[in-house]
């Protein structure tokens, strides 16, 4: 159909709409003048309300309802941690005994007191069958010498302060609720100590959080005592909700439209660094990609700057490896793989693929990931310049991952992955999960096995708690090995634009918790 035919139909429908609107006598949108309710649009769905099991997007809500022992400050802060439920803490010199002194007079939302027994029960439950149980793998026993002191005894030295501030597997939960088991939480019941409690939950529709009056941190000033989160997967719909004033904050807007909000005084745009990064894995088990020269060639044929500029709409920063900037053990001295088509051609020739002859590769990415969908073609185009043909395979992440894990021999040649560490130690997480040898592939989707690399990361892990410099040095060596062997290419660390109605004040980024917004921190102020 040609365009002129569409126009009268649309015009007529618009006219009808206007007439009907006149009948109902309303004007558009909502006026959020009360300052008491914060309306937000989010993509965060709830996989589980059980804080022990939680390992997904529900952290968006949980982080406002529950508290860990410590919070981790943003990189560059004077203090690395700040107290949450623990007021003070110290560790033995060998980092195998950690003592946490708990805040007094804190109650859970169900009225139970927050004490050493509650912390012991919560952490033991998380370590035993939590969704992120592995973060406590070093935990041996928990002692409670008195009502407000908790002593963690570890099997091996580990940074318990970092682990205790994780956003998965470290929430302190009322023991009464914990004892009720899995199904208790299913409908959106909470038993935390945080500033908010879950007051309403409609699966995939909305979550309402209401102030917990007896919150130990207090409720001063124009805070939002009610937060209404509308779960909206569509970025366009989120944008419209923000523009129509239905929400004060939208968590995931179409990136290409963020610039518009920057120019508008009605909104504040904060660009937050995150620990989420994009990696391309090369399948090292089959065909030409077994050859390190081919991998090096491909790594240099990836148009990194264009990917950040076009694929991420500028909301990203080139990576130096699988460790995102700001997270331990990021190393600013690591070289970045250059975009050098000449070098790539030369390497291909040396490997016996002159002019990329006959090289046909498949590249799979998550179809629902808008950024990957945008930059995958850039890789394809650039590879074509060195004579390598790429077939793009967009499928849902869940399927993409299942296929990749099933059998490396028939799997994709290149796998695009978006990844973030469970807590802020990307050494024990990213470097191990993504590239350390494993019998069955899980997140090591280049299926790479390298004894030298394994040795570096294994040894580094034992030093993290006691001698961070030593650990960083070893992790640095591991990362250099990665860049040399090129089992993958490191694309970029994401940045998230946070767009809020300018009446909302007090927001500060923290990449340690980039999936959540501390609502209690926000204030309502006249613009």
């Amino acid at each position: 159909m040609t365009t002129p035919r569409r126009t009268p139909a649309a015009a007529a429908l618009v006219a009808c709409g206007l007439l009907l609107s006149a009948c109902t006598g309303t004007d558009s949108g909502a006026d959020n003048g009360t300052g008491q309710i914060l309306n937000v649009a989010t993509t965060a769905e709830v996989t589980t309300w059980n804080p022990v099991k939680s390992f997904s997007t529900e952290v968006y809500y949980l982080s406002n309802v529950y508290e860990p022992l410590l919070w981790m400050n943003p990189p560059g802060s004077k203090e690395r941690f700040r107290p949450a439920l623990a007021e003070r803490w110290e560790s033995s010199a060998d980092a195998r005994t950690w003592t946490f002194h708990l805040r007094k007079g804190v109650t859970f939302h169900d009225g139970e007191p927050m004490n050493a027994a509650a912390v012991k029960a919560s952490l033991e439950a998380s370590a035993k069958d939590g969704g992120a149980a592995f973060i406590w793998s070093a935990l041996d026993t928990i002692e409670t010498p008195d009502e407000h002191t908790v002593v963690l005894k570890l099997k091996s030295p580990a940074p318990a302060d970092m682990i205790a501030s994780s956003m998965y597997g470290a929430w302190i939960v009322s023991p009464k609720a914990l004892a009720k088991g899995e199904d208790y939480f299913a409908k959106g019941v909470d038993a935390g100590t945080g500033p908010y409690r879950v007051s309403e939950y409609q699966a995939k529709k909305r979550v309402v959080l209401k102030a917990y009056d007896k919150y130990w941190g207090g409720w001063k000033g124009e805070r939002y005592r009610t937060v209404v989160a509308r779960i909206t997967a569509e970025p366009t719909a989120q944008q419209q909700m923000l523009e129509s004033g239905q929400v004060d904050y939208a968590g995931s807007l179409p990136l290409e439209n963020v610039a518009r909000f920057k120019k508008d005084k009605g909104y504040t745009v904060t660009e937050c660094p995150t620990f989420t990064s994009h990696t391309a894995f090369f399948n090292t088990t089959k065909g030409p990609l077994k050859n390190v020269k081919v991998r090096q060639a491909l790594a240099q044929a990836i148009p990194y700057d264009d990917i950040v500029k076009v694929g991420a709409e500028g909301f990203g920063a080139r990576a130096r490896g699988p460790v995102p900037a700001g997270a331990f053990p990021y190393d600013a001295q690591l070289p970045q793989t250059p975009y050098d088509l000449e070098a790539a051609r030369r390497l291909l020739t040396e490997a016996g693929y002159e002019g990329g002859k006959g090289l046909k590769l498949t590249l799979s990415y998550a179809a629902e990931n808008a950024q990957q969908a945008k930059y995958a073609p850039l890789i394809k185009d650039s590879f074509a310049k060195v004579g390598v043909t790429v077939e793009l395979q967009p499928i849902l992440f869940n399927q993409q991952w299942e296929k990749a894990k099933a059998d490396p021999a028939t799997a994709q040649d290149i796998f695009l992955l978006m990844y973030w560490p469970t807590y802020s130690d990307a050494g024990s997480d990213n470097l191990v999960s993504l590239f350390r040898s494993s019998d069955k592939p899980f997140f090591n989707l280049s299926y790479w096995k390298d004894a030298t690399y394994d040795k570096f990361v294994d040894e580094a892990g034992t030093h993290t708690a006691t001698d961070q410099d030593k650990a960083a040095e070893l992790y640095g060596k591991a990362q250099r090995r990665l860049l040399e062997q090129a089992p993958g290419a490191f694309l970029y660390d994401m940045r998230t634009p946070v767009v809020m109605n300018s009446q909302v004040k007090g927001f500060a980024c923290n990449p340690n918790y980039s999936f959540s917004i501390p609502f209690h921190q926000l204030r309502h102020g006249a613009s």
Partner: protein
Amino acid sequence: MPRFLLRRLRGSLLVLLGVSAITFLLARVIPSNPALTYVGAKATPEEVERVTHALGLDQPLPVQYLSYLRNVLTGDWGTSIATKQPVLGELGDRLPATLELVGAAMAVALVLGVTLGCIAAVRPGRLIDQAVRLLSIAGVSVPAFWLGLLLQLLVFGRLGLLPPTGRIDSDLEFTAPIHSITGLNTVDALLTGNGAALASAAAHLILPALTLAAYPLGVVARMTRTSMLEALQQDHIRVGRAYGVPERTLVWRVALRNALPPTVTVLGLTAAYALTGAFFVEVVFDWPGLGQYAASGLLSLDYPAVMGVTLIGAIAYVLVNLAVDLVHARLDPRVRPA
């Protein structure tokens, strides 16, 4: 009549069985692991394995299908993998929103479509007829999601009128909450005399309902025009005209009555089609109905949810067809077998 009804019902049941079998198979041949959805993407392999077993996903396919079928018949439509809530409850929770949307759209299509069709039939070949023709063709051929976006852009974006998304202003849910009787916001607000909520709910309904109405509106307008032209050619109309019966009475009272039955049949059929259209419209307008539920279910590979929606859709389709057949049989004895 009862025998006719029985036979139609039996056929409908077979259709539903077929639909459930096909959706079940489709949901399982995709290389994906629903257990992953259950525990979240970063869970450990052991955890995934435990859940796979707990959900019965390690059973052979026929066993899984049979137990699914047995459960469906006893009112247990499974538990959503993504939300862990009973699927039947979630469907019941979302059905009213879709019904309200589809109902409003069909009302718009019927009233506007019949009016436009009549106007076009009275002046065949004239400018107004051409305009209605254009509108009908556009309504039928423009994709719903595109039209929806266009309307949002124009009415909300440019003119600043009408809310672009949602069912009601979220503030109203606290200041003037709707007491739910039928689940249809506009109806409930009307019944309880909640003026503020009625205004907001109606304003939110306009754009998605218009978008969804475009297709049936086009069909109905065309159908009405054709059958009206035919009706206006009838002898009794000419006789009436000769006797000086006012033209208005002839068109709107006499001819329209003859022209309406086929239009209603067509409307019934497009109603079933509109249900599918609602899926796109709901996503675009963030309308919390079955369509949105299906879309998010598909994206998270939440197969109990997807199968639940498919089954509801199939049931609605079958019911509407059944109703159309019955109405038709009532109107036209030739359809009814002896």
